[in-house]
């Protein structure tokens, strides 16, 4: 019987939650790497037992952990992320130039067909690749070397590359997103990149057509339709039907169009999920009600999903990498909160249960569908 494995990164370690396909009972393993911030754990689509975890600390720096047995055991692999050439500078919060400095890995995106190839999105924003199972890393420096690189400025969480999407039809095409530079696309495997931010409107920017400087929080794509991208921006939920060449807003009746994660249903490419958050100054659900909003029309028409979620006195946040879907039918949807809850729905969002309630603040959730 197939099952689901949730890979949960938290402020104080990693957890692996496992269920059979019914998704009504879960085993909880962890914490792994207790006391360390685990920004992201992700699995290779080509080998479900191959996992990678980003283990970080303000004291001790970056460690990359790898598992070859589905998270039962781990071994540290390479942690040397060196920018290509002379790193140069980017824009700092106060508008001055600031040296590029590696801080941590925010996101791992394994290759769809090779368990030893994996991409890492890091802070300060850059894209690295390993082709030897994480032992060594090289920068795809065409991204950071883009002529706009000196204009990139950190968001409140840092200058982080947090989203990596690989086109399943044309793996040479990838989309990445950086807070607060915007979205970028390569069509040649990472050699050259161009900003794809046309149509984004960021009220903080005097020039509304500015090429970069947009605080993109997350981009999602359904593998069957890689031309269609969905974005949760700092404010605004956006959609592109041309691989990011242009964007239009699909927020419409959301109670707030501020938020962090966005996800696409595994089998319905026009069904998308967001978690509205009141504002960038409060970072809590509107009215103290934790609601996932679902659109089955690719945006603009949204319905609140509340069954099983707290509808009073709830003031948690849901971070950008903390929502994921499984590939079962009905589609499972999962998200983690800064309050330590991981909620799951085995019916595409109609109803929710708390799989765990008291983990450390959740930084990331990846759902893995097991054979």
């Amino acid at each position: 019987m197939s099952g689901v494995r949730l890979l949960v990164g938290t402020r104080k370690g990693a957890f692996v939650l496992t269920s059979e396909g019914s998704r009504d009972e879960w085993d909880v393993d962890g914490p792994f790497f207790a006391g360390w911030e685990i920004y992201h754990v992700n699995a290779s689509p080509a080998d479900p037992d191959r996992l990678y975890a980003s283990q970080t600390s303000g004291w001790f720096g970056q460690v990359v952990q790898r598992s070859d047995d589905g998270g039962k055991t781990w071994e540290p692999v390479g942690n040397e992320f060196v920018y290509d050439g002379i790193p140069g500078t980017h824009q700092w919060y106060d508008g001055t130039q600031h040296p590029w400095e590696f801080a941590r890995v925010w996101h791992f995106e394994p290759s769809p067909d090779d368990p030893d190839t994996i991409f890492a999105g890091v802070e300060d924003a850059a894209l690295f690749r390993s082709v030897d199972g994480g032992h060594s890393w090289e920068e795809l420096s065409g991204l950071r070397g883009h002529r706009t690189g000196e204009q990139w400025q950190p968001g409140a969480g840092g200058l982080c590359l947090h989203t990596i999407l690989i086109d399943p039809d044309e793996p040479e095409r990838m989309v990445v997103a950086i807070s607060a530079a915007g979205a970028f696309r390569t069509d040649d495997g990472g050699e050259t990149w161009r900003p794809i931010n046309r149509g984004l409107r960021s009220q903080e920017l005097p020039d509304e057509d500015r090429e970069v400087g947009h605080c993109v929080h997350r981009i999602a794509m359904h593998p069957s339709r890689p031309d269609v991208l969905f974005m949760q921006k700092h404010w605004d939920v956006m959609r592109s039907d041309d691989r990011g060449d242009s964007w239009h807003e699909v927020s419409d009746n959301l109670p707030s169009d501020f938020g962090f994660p966005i996800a696409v249903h595994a089998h319905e490419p026009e069904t998308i999920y967001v978690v509205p958050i009141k504002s960038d100054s409060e970072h809590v659900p509107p009215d103290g009600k934790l609601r996932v909003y679902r659109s089955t029309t690719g945006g603009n028409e949204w319905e609140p999903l509340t069954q099983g979620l707290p509808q009073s006195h709830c003031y948690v946040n849901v971070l950008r990498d903390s929502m994921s879907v499984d590939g079962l039918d009905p589609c499972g949807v999962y998200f983690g909160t800064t309050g330590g809850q991981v909620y799951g729905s085995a019916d595409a969002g109609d109803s929710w249960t708390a799989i765990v309630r008291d983990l450390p603040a959740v930084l990331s959730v990846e759902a893995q569908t097991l054979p």
Partner: protein
Amino acid sequence: MIRVALPQHLRTLAGVDGEVRLDLQGPSTQRTVLDALETTYPVLRGTIRDHGGGERRAFIRFFACGRDLSLEPADDPLPDEVASGAEVFRVVGAMAGG
């Protein structure tokens, strides 16, 4: 023989209990001790000193013989008591936050 005390997280990472004992060839300095430590436990590379330039990470401090050696030049000789193994060379995660 040099005795090195690591903070808990680095002991866990290196898979060691208690003090680490290192046999050095040549002079005992911060650099030679940390080089030997990283050679014995490669997983510690990048956790105490940055890759590349080898700069001490900002929230790491070095103590021995009741003294803070963090700002001493990396190639200066360590105290004789450390070099002889009578005193422990301590790698400390600085208290920060609240």
